[in-house]
């Protein structure tokens, strides 16, 4: 998806600049095998050619490089290199910064616990510069020149579509965090965000049941993600909920004039306004809704594109009362999230908010670590094969597991926007929703 999501003060960009390109994270907290002395020892041993003659036991935690890396990836006896590929500049920087921060936090935490297969994660950060071919170029650089074991990256559908052929050609592994339109599945990608049916169907069911909603009005930005999402939503409303779609309107990205659609909404009086307007347009949309006298505490509005990050720009008072449907809210009350949120704020500042995509980006390094440990190898083929069934119990959203189709099982949640810019959890699915990127009957 493409969105210009966060509208945060510039302080955020300043904070990011620390700890850039591939700095090995500190490992004070780490007491086990890889104490500083131990690390020096290991490095010293690496220089000895007769390394394989040493007793096996000393490598119990750090298996030999030749064993975990048969394809020439950037793995040494002490380090493994991954890539971070997001837009640090350009229009998307404001959205992707959260993902970069989450990935760096995850890497630091993993390193503090001793790393992956006994190796510290070193990262190389590349800038996609909000430009899709640049993403492809940098992905290729990371895979071909730097031989990274995995890439955490991409945000918009467009950047993913540009990178995908590169990942497949050079056999890389991409962890992609954004909720997106589906219709895609690749051996070389793990989709840590929700695909469209996971995100939408449960939310529509809930609002139909809860509010008795029969008529829906769709408003979206004009590109593939909102159009595909609305196509799925329309099929569900018409075929399953037996309701009616009374209007469907699209606006170009960055559009700030929503008066005509707001008039149509007032005329058709839908039970629910269903929106997937993205980026800066959101600010105008919600302000104009309010100015037109549409009270979101009476008029139900369900959005799949507004996270805490967007509310930062929209202003809590303009959107309070609206419902959002996704898998994560910063306010979730579970033990994992209670340690995740303070850790994130400690690293990136007290004012930072954490949206759905940021949380999904945090899952990437962890899932990769768990998969590498399950596979006992960094080889991309083995990681891809071992991925299905990998579960991460420490996920801030609660729990996730990788499906055979490389998407995640996850719960879908509905939150209600509050004045302070946070969401109050209203509903969550009892079971984990199966990811279904090629939904039958919805195409």
């Amino acid at each position, binding site marked *: 998806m493409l969105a210009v999501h966060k509208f945060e003060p510039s302080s955020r960009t300043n904070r990011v600049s620390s700890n850039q390109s591939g700095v090995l994270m500190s490992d004070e907290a780490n007491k086990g095998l890889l104490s500083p002395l131990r690390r020096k020892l290991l490095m010293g041993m690496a220089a000895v050619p007769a390394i394989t003659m040493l007793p096996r036991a000393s490598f119990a935690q750090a298996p030999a490089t030749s064993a975990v890396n048969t394809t020439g990836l950037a793995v040494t006896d002490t380090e493994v290199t991954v890539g971070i590929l997001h837009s640090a500049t350009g229009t998307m920087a404001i959205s992707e910064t959260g993902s970069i921060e989450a990935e760096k936090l995850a890497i630091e935490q993993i390193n503090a616990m001793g790393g992956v297969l006994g190796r510290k994660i070193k990262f190389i950060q590349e800038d996609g510069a909000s430009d899709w071919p640049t993403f*492809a170029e940098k992905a290729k650089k990371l895979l071909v020149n730097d031989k990274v074991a995995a890439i955490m990256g991409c945000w918009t559908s467009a950047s993913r579509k540009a990178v995908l052929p590169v990942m497949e050609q050079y056999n890389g592994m991409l962890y992609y965090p954004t909720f997106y339109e589906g219709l895609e599945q690749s051996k070389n990608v793990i989709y840590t965000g929700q695909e469209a049916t996971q995100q939408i169907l449960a939310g529509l069911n809930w609002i139909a049941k809860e509010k008795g909603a029969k008529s829906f009005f769709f408003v979206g930005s004009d590109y593939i993600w909102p159009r595909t999402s609305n196509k799925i939503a329309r099929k569900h409303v018409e075929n399953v909920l037996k309701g009616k779609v009374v209007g469907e309107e699209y606006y170009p990205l960055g559009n700030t004039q929503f008066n005509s659609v707001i008039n149509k909404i007032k005329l058709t009086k839908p039970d629910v306004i269903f929106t997937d307007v993205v980026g800066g347009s959101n600010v105008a949309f919600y302000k104009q809704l309010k100015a037109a006298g549409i009270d979101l505490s009476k008029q139900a509005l369900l959005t799949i594109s507004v996270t805490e990050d967007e509310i930062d720009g929209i202003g809590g008072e303009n959107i309070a009362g609206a419902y959002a449907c996704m898998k994560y809210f910063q306010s979730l009350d579970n033990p994992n999230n209670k340690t995740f949120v303070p850790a994130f704020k400690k690293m990136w500042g007290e004012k930072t908010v954490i949206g759905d995509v940021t949380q999904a980006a945090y899952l990437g390094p962890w899932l990769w670590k768990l998969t590498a440990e399950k596979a006992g190898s960094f080889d991309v083929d083995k990681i891809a094969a071992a991925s299905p069934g990998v579960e991460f119990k420490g996920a801030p959203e609660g729990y996730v597991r990788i499906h055979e189709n490389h998407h995640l099982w996850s719960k879908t949640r509905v939150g209600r926007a509050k004045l302070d810019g946070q969401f109050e959890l209203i509903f969550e699915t009892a079971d984990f929703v199966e990811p279904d990127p090629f939904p039958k009957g919805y195409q």
Partner: protein
Amino acid sequence: MTDNRFFNRSELIGILLLAVFLVVILPLTLDVFRLNLVAKYLTYAFVALGLVVCWGYGGILSLGQGVFFGLGGYCMAMFLKLEASSVENTKIQSTPGIPDFMDWNQITSLPLFWKPFNSLTFTIAAIILVPGIFAWIIGTAMFKRRVGGTYFAIITQAVAAILTILIVGQQGYTGGINGMTDLRTLKGWDIRPDHAKVVLYFFEVGCLFVCIMIAQFIRHSKLGRILVAMREKEDRVRFSGYSVANFKIFAFCIAAIFAAIGGAMFALNVGFMSPSFVGIVPSIEMVIYTAVGGRLSILGAVYGTLLVNFAKTSLSETFPELWLFGLGGLFIAVVLAFPNGLAGIWGDYVQPRIDGLISSRKPKPAGWTEGSVADGAPAE
């Protein structure tokens, strides 16, 4: 050094040096990945070359060359996309055999205007003709009415904006903001592996030299002098009985066709085409390449493009969060210190020394020489 020759001695040496640089030195020193990046940069050199003819010589500043780059690129990408969307490659779709983005947008059959792009011959013709005719229409509409200068530049910007909106809005037919991705083969020949990239690189360099020769020819022909005269004093040329509009249209069309060839090369080399090369920002960026290289120098355009793009890539790899500032600083420095770009530095400082070393005795030839064309101050 007479009117009839393509180039004088120093230009010949310059072209040979560029040929050695592109054909021998770069392929020998760079790995395939970097060579492919150079191939990508060189696609912009086509645009810069066109801008030298149209802006440097003709004085017509076009801020919408991305339009023609895009038209050429999309023509090529449509052909490649059709080939990549064979029924067996797309059997997962609800309508197999059409490009994936059409299927996502509920289009169930191939639109009529896509069908001719099954033919490579038609595609090659379209790469030249579509932008050529489009430029001719814009040029006729503007120059015949004597719209020029800043107004023309603004209108080209508007065209760039309109085309971007059109492409993004009609995503079922164009791929929208995602563009056309995953281009695979050309007549069954896989364009993705390393050896194909090398072949494509040399093919592109060949095309670039053909375009350089055409630009050289125009520059040294009578036509080229009328262009320069027009840039300096349009009214005098008009009063001398020349149809100024027709010459302008010609220069604009040539620039458009060069840009389109660059776009087509881009689609081939990068395997990708998207509206992000069509809009206002990339169009202006292309003008910057020309300005850095020196807008009066054909070879300067090539070096300028390579330099700016190399800087872009290496700065962004070294400083992922600060590189844009560095690049901006570079532009300001170049424009302030060297208004005629790289070619100006060469012409002012390096060339005179070389000349002095080689032929200190030889008198300068009289009449129209390279210097009198290249050093003239532009009208705008």
